[in-house]
């Protein structure tokens, strides 16, 4: 019965999304107040029915209802409850349902908050309704999670063991909150083009911030998962799927900066609209890349060409439609505002130049092999060395400019004074550089340069925070986000340059060394988990001949799939990780072991967290200030008289 209930809820949701699309777009007209209320109600209704469908599917996973095909192929009675629940989005059908659920949450928020006035909100709801309808059609026709299986099997196939992990349980919802959050900016941008209201950048700002924070956290979680789960200590592989999440992040970052200028000084109006469209378009392209089976990885659940085709048409319509609207309406927008070359506007513009180039780099690197293969069958791969030579220099140039932005005034700044005020940051950069060259081994010029840049960023953020002492919390948002960049850079550099590793075979009672650590191997015991059996190695960190902390890396065999997974053990001091992965059994109690010492590794994710915290401060400030903003905030009507 539950499956049919979910199916019915999805059908109602589809009907409501179509109503919302039509009513929302009609309501964009001045006199259609009735249509506007219909759009708002259907947005809430859409959320209720999608949530009902999602709840139904979750319930089917929890009670292991194997008469539903999706549950039978992706779940198992032996799985712990939390992975039964995360299994809902650990497969193609369920993850698309999660996608629509997040879309409907944003639609309900747009309807409930009514930011930017009734007409803009209504048009935005109309666009959001079109997107919801397209994805609901996709689910109902190609990826229905409620299809029945008759006869129902006695046991389910289970979830990919790599995905049975707390980090990965949270990763997809977080990433989707970001991907789909960009749909709100997209809808507001399209609405602004339709209605011609200037207030869209301010109206959409909280949504941009939430989407950006969620993307930041989602990417950090994914990277952390890759680090501890895949067993080789890497945190970023420039895998097409990772790239698919990085591209929207880069554009969302550009959008946050550009839209700030649009809102505060009226600059870059058309450009911000284009970025809002591009951000969500890249989210869609990312979904296509991941879901179409064009890339092979743990993420690619779907290898059905009809789905790929459907998503491709959907993307073409969404992106093509938005760009056509842009080409039609953007020329009617007023020209840019006045500002001097030395002004915050200029720094925000340069920020966008570098972020767009960096995004182009990831875009070309991800798609080029597929396109080249399709054109003439030439097969090439694009790996980390490509990004080191292209992405890294572009991103470094951007980082050098970051400290100037928050210090320069709008319209007209004093570059000399700002430069002088940044001397202490420059000093910190020099100290970081010298210390690295003097102390760290092996000596690395690249590392010294990276530390200098990190010192420059963190130093400038400290100066910024000192300068704004006593201001409201949101004034520190930029300083925190920029400091986070510096912190992540320290982590990435430390791990990449100074990682030491040992690959060896140890027998019980033997010791091994890795970096500054000595480890005693106390043998392996067989342990039984809920749905796996594991060899659990016991390693003791020796400090001056005495036993210290114990580490328990495991080698697990998941019973349902017969798949081997290494479960690493990490001992962290906060500034340095000791990382152990247990390898194969070599007879007589001897085991292969991989051990890494990764200096500064935890800073990679700490930096991401600090960045997201910066976003949270800014959002908090926005929502506190939202009372006066709720009035239609259009200081100057942007659209020229038609």
């Amino acid at each position, binding site marked *: 019965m539950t499956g049919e209930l979910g199916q019915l809820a999805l059908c109602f949701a589809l009907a409501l999304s179509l109503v919302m699309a039509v009513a929302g777009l009609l309501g964009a007209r001045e006199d259609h107040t009735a249509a506007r209320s219909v759009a708002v109600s259907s947005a809430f209704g859409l959320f209720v029915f999608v949530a009902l469908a999602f709840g139904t599917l979750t319930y089917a996973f929890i009670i292991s209802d194997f008469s539903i095909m999706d549950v039978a192929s992706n779940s198992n009675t032996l799985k712990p409850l939390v992975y039964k629940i995360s299994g809902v989005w650990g497969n193609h059908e369920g993850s698309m349902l999660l996608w629509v659920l997040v879309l409907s949450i944003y639609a309900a928020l747009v309807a409930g908050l009514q930011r930017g006035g009734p007409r803009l909100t209504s048009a935005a709801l109309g666009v959001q309704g079109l997107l919801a309808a397209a994805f609901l059609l996709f689910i109902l026709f190609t990826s229905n999670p409620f299809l029945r299986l008759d006869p129902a099997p006695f046991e389910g196939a289970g979830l990919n063991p790599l995905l049975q992990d707390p980090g990965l349980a949270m990763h997809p919802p977080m990433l989707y909150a970001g991907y789909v959050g960009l749909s709100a900016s997209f809808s507001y941008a399209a609405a602004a083009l339709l209605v011609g209201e200037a207030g869209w950048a301010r109206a959409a700002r909280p949504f941009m911030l939430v989407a950006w924070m969620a993307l930041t956290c989602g990417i950090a979680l994914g990277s952390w998962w890759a680090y501890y789960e895949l*067993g*080789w200590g*890497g945190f970023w592989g*420039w*895998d*097409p799927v990772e790239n698919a999440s990085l591209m929207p992040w880069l554009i969302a970052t550009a959008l946050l900066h550009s839209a700030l200028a649009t809102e505060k000084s009226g*600059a*870059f109006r058309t450009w911000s609209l284009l970025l809002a469209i591009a951000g969500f378009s890249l989210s869609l392209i990312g979904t296509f890349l991941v879901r179409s*089976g*064009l*890339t*092979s*990885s*743990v993420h690619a659940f779907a*290898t059905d*060409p009809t789905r790929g085709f459907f998503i491709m048409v959907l993307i073409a319509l969404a992106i093509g439609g938005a760009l056509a609207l842009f080409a039609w309406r953007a020329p009617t927008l007023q*020209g*840019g*505002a*006045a*500002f*001097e*070359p030395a002004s915050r*506007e*200029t720094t925000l*513009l*340069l920020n*966008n*130049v*570098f972020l*767009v*180039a*960096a995004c*182009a*780099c990831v875009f*070309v*690197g991800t798609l*080029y*092999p597929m396109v*080249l*293969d399709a054109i*003439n069958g*030439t*097969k*090439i*791969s*694009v*790996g*980390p*060395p*490509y990004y080191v030579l*292209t*992405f890294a220099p*572009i991103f470094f140039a951007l980082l050098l400019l970051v400290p100037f932005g928050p210090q320069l005034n709008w319209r007209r700044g004093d570059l000399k004074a700002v430069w002088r005020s940044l001397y202490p940051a420059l000093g910190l950069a020099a100290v970081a550089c010298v210390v690295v060259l003097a102390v760290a081994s092996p000596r690395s010029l690249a590392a010294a340069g990276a530390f200098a840049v990190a010192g420059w960023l963190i130093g400038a953020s400290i100066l910024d925070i000192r300068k704004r002492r006593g201001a409201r919390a949101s004034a520190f948002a930029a300083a925190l986000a920029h400091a986070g960049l510096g912190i992540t850079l320290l982590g990435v550099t430390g791990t990449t340059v100074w990682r030491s590793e040992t*690959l060896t*075979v140890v027998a019980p009672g033997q010791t091994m060394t890795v970096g500054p650590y000595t480890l005693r191997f106390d043998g392996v015991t067989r342990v039984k988990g809920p749905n796996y059996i594991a060899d659990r190695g016991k390693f003791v960190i020796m400090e001056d001949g005495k036993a210290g902390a114990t580490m328990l890396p495991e080698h697990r065999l998941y019973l349902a799939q017969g798949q081997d997974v290494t479960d690493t053990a990490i001992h962290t001091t906060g500034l340095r990780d000791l990382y152990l992965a247990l*390898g*194969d059994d070599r007879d007589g109690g001897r085991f*292969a072991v*991989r051990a890494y010492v990764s200096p500064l590794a935890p800073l990679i994710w700490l930096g991401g967290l600090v960045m997201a915290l910066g976003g949270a401060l800014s959002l908090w400030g926005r929502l506190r200030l939202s009372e006066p903003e709720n009035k239609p905030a259009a200081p100057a009507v942007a659209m020229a008289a038609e």
Partner: protein
Amino acid sequence: MKCSGVKTVIALLLLMGSSNAVFAAAVPETFSDPAKEARARHLQRQFFCLICAGESVDESNSSFATDVRRLLREQIAEGKTDKQIQDFFVARYGAAILTKPPVEPATWLLWLGPFGVLAIAGGVAWVTIKRAGKAGT
């Protein structure tokens, strides 16, 4: 899909050819000479494990990676140059094995595209800044 089918076939062939190498996967043989070992590790990072998702031969535990590591170390022991070793693997597995794509006419757009975008975006920014300055006066 077609592409993954081919990959599966390759993977199966490799598995058949090297079933006894699978268990030697996690720990490759190592050179006692640290300079040679460093060179081997450096070279291992230049090749992709073609049956894995985005892992290099240095990182992967697969049979394919193990085979490549063994062949690579054999060739270093024979005194081949980096270039010769690279050519050997490209001839054997195609250019897709290289983590750094080759620089040739077919990849100029790949290598120069991002900098082209940077130049165009920079040009547009320059014009915008000039215009914004004039608009103020």
